[in-house]
C-alpha cells in the first residue's frame, strides 16, 4: 500500500478556502490538471455519496465518489471508483485547519492506494506532485484571481485621510461639501475598503434634504460602494486584503474614498461584474431581490405596476419581474423614458406627470388591476394606487418622491383586501447569511442577463451636487455612479 501526504499553508482564512474545497465539483475552477467535470445524476456537489466524473487535460477519465464530508472538522474523504490510471483502492482525505497566528489555513491532503508492481515511484509522484502540489498552486492562483492586481498602498494600523462628501445642513444640493475626513484602521470584525465606485440613490436625497433623519448634518452621505479591501482587523474571516467587495449598509457614509466598515456587510464581487455595474446595481438589485423573491414571491402571469420604471430601481425591478414571466406595467414622466421602460421589459407604459395612472392600468389588464405595486411616489399616489390594485393586491411603498404618506385609510385597503407594506432593505440584509444568498441570486441574474444595471452617468466625487440635481430633476436615466 502506498501512502502520499502533502501539506501546505494557504494565505487565506479557513472559511474562504473551505467554501471552495467543500464543493466536490469545484476542481474544474481551480485545479490546473482538471479539464471538465460533472456530478453524475445532477446531484448536489456536497451530497455525501455523489460521484464526480471528470477528464484530465491529458485526456484521462476518472470517476470519484465523495464518501465523507464534515463542515465541523473541515474535512472530506473520497475514493476512486474507476479511472484510466492504475490507482487501486485509492482513498484520499483533505483536512483544513486554521492557523490562528495570522489567520491562514493549513491544508493536509493524503491518500493510500495500490499500484502495479514497479510503478510505485511514478504513480506516487503523479499523485503527490501532479495532483496535490499542483492543486495547492492552482488554488493559490484561483484565490489571487478577482483580487486587485495592485492593491492601494495602505499600511495596516494607521489612520488615513480621504475626500468625503458631507451635508452641512438639511437642504438642497448646495449643502453638499467636499471635506477631508479621518479613516481609522479596522478594529475587531472590521475591514477598510478603498472605494472605486459609489452608487447614488434617491434615499441619499431624502437624507440630505432632511425628509429622512438618518444622519446628523455634517456627516458623510451615501449607502453603497464598491472597492478593494486594504486591511482587516482581528477576527475577520470572510474577506482579505486585495478582495474586490461591495456593500449596501445603514447608516450612511459611502460618499468617500476610503471607509472602515463592519466586514460582515461586505459582499465579494465576481470577476465578471465591473465596479460601475456593481455600484449601479447592488443596493437597487438587493432591493429588487427581496421585493420579488422574499416580500412578494412573484409568480409568472402576475401583473406588476412599477412606478418610475426607467429609474435605477424601477429598471431593475422591471427587468427581473418580466424575466420571471410577470406582466409589467410602468409609469414614467416622459416619452423618452417610456422607450427606456419598454426596453427594460414593460408590456405597457403610462406616461404621466400628475400621478394619474389607475384608469390606464385597469384598461391594460381588462379590469384586473395590479397584483403587485412597487411604489416610490408616496403621498400623491395613494388614491390612484388603491384604485389600480387588483383584488388581494399587494402595494409596497418604498419611496416618497411626492412626499411621505401621512395617513392611510384602512377602509381603502378593505375594499379589495389589499396588503400594504413599507419594507426596509436593511432589515433583509442584517443577517449575513441571507445577505450572501441575496447577493448570489443578484450576481446570477446579472450574469444571465435577466438583470442589466443601467449606468446613466458617472460623476467625479466632487461633482456630487450635480448628480443630485440630475436625479431630483427627474431628467436622469438609469443609475448614477460617483467615482472618488
Amino acid at each position: 500500500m502506498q501512502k502520499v501526504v502533502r501539506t501546505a499553508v494557504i494565505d487565506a482564512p479557513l472559511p474562504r478556502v473551505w467554501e471552495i474545497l467543500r464543493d466536490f465539483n469545484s476542481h474544474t475552477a481551480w485545479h490546473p490538471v482538471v479539464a471538465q467535470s460533472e456530478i453524475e445524476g445532477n446531484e448536489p456537489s456536497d451530497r455525501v455519496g455523489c460521484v464526480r466524473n471528470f477528464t484530465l487535460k491529458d485526456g484521462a477519465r476518472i470517476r470519484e465518489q465523495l464518501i465523507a464530508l464534515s463542515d465541523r472538522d473541515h474535512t472530506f474523504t473520497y475514493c476512486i471508483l474507476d479511472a484510466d490510471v492504475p490507482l487501486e483502492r485509492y482513498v484520499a482525505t483533505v483536512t483544513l485547519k486554521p492557523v490562528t497566528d495570522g489567520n491562514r489555513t493549513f491544508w493536509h491532503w493524503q491518500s493510500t492506494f495500490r499500484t502495479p508492481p514497479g510503478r510505485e515511484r511514478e504513480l506516487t509522484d503523479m499523485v503527490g506532485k501532479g495532483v496535490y502540489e499542483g492543486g495547492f498552486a492552482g488554488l493559490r492562483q484561483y484565490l489571487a484571481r478577482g483580487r486587485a492586481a495592485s492593491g492601494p498602498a495602505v499600511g495596516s494600523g494607521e489612520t488615513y485621510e480621504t475626500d468625503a462628501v458631507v451635508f452641512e445642513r438639511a437642504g438642497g444640493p448646495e449643502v453638499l461639501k467636499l471635506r477631508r475626513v479621518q479613516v481609522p484602521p479596522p478594529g475587531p470584525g472590521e475591514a477598510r475598503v478603498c472605494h472605486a465606485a459609489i452608487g447614488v440613490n434617491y434615499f441619499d436625497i431624502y437624507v440630505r434634504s432632511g425628509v429622512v433623519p438618518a444622519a446628523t448634518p455634517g456627516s458623510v452621505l451615501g449607502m453603497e460602494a464598491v472597492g478593494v479591501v486594504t486591511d482587516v482587523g482581528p477576527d475577520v474571516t470572510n474577506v482579505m486584503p486585495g478582495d474586490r467587495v461591495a456593500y449596501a449598509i445603514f447608516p450612511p457614509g459611502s460618499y468617500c474614498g476610503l471607509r472602515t466598515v463592519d466586514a460582515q456587510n461586505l459582499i465579494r464581487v465576481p470577476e465578471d461584474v465591473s465596479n460601475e455595474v456593481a455600484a449601479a446595481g447592488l443596493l437597487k438589485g438587493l432591493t429588487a431581490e427581496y421585493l420579488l423573491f422574499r416580500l412578494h414571491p412573484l409568480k409568472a402571469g402576475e401583473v406588476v405596476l412599477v412606478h418610475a420604471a426607467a429609474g435605477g430601481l424601477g429598471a431593475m425591478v422591471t427587468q427581473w419581474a418580466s424575466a420571471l414571466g410577470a406582466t409589467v406595467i410602468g409609469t414614467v414622466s416622459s416619452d423618452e423614458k417610456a422607450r427606456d421602460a419598454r426596453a427594460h421589459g414593460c408590456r405597457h407604459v403610462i406616461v404621466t406627470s400628475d400621478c394619474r395612472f389607475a384608469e390606464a392600468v385597469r384598461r391594460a389588464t381588462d379590469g384586473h388591476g395590479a397584483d403587485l405595486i412597487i411604489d416610490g411616489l408616496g403621498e400623491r399616489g395613494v388614491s390612484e394606487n388603491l384604485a389600480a390594485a387588483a383584488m388581494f393586491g399587494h402595494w409596497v411603498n418604498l419611496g416618497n418622491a411626492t412626499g411621505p404618506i401621512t395617513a392611510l385609510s384602512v377602509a381603502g385597503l378593505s375594499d379589495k383586501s389589499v396588503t400594504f407594506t413599507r419594507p426596509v432593505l436593511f432589515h433583509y440584509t442584517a443577517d449575513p447569511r441571507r445577505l450572501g444568498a441575496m447577493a448570489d441570486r443578484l450576481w446570477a441574474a446579472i450574469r444571465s442577463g435577466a438583470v442589466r444595471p443601467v449606468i446613466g452617468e458617472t460623476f467625479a466625487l466632487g461633482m456630487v451636487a450635480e448628480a443630485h440635481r440630475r436625479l431630483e430633476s427627474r431628467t436622469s436615466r438609469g443609475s448614477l455612479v460617483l467615482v472618488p
Partner: protein
Amino acid sequence: MIRVYTSSVIDASADAVWGVIRDFNALPSWLPIVMESRIEDGQPADKVGCVRAFRMRDGGRLREQLLSLSDYDYQCVYSILESPMPLTNYVATLKLTPVTDGQRAFAEWSAEFDCDPRDERDLARNIGQGVFQLGFDALKQRFGRR
C-alpha cells in the same frame, strides 16, 4: 468543557522544532514565562507518566503529567495535576505537522478543561495567548524569520 486552540507556522523542519519541545522538562529553555522545572522522582523526561513540577516567573507553581508522547506523530499530551488557575480536568496537546510545501512546521497547541463560566474568557485568553501563542512566538524567534 472549554476548548482553546492556537496554531502557528514555524520556519524550521518539524524534526528541528520537535528536538526542542519533546523534552518534557525543557520549558524554561524555550517558554519565557517558566523559571525552572524538574521531573519528580528522578524519572526520565520522556517516560510517559512522569510529572514535571515547575515555577512560573510570576511565582505560580504547577505540576503536570505526561499522558502520551509520540515521536512518530510529533505529539505530546499532558494534564494539569495542580495549578493556581481556577480550572479542572485540564488536558493539553502540543502537536507538529510537517509542511511539505517548504521546510516548515505547522504547530498546534490546544487544551480542554472545565471551569466556572465567569472565568471562561479570562482563562481562554490567558492560556491561548499568554501561554500557547507566547510559546509559538518564542519558537518563531528562535528559528529565525517568521
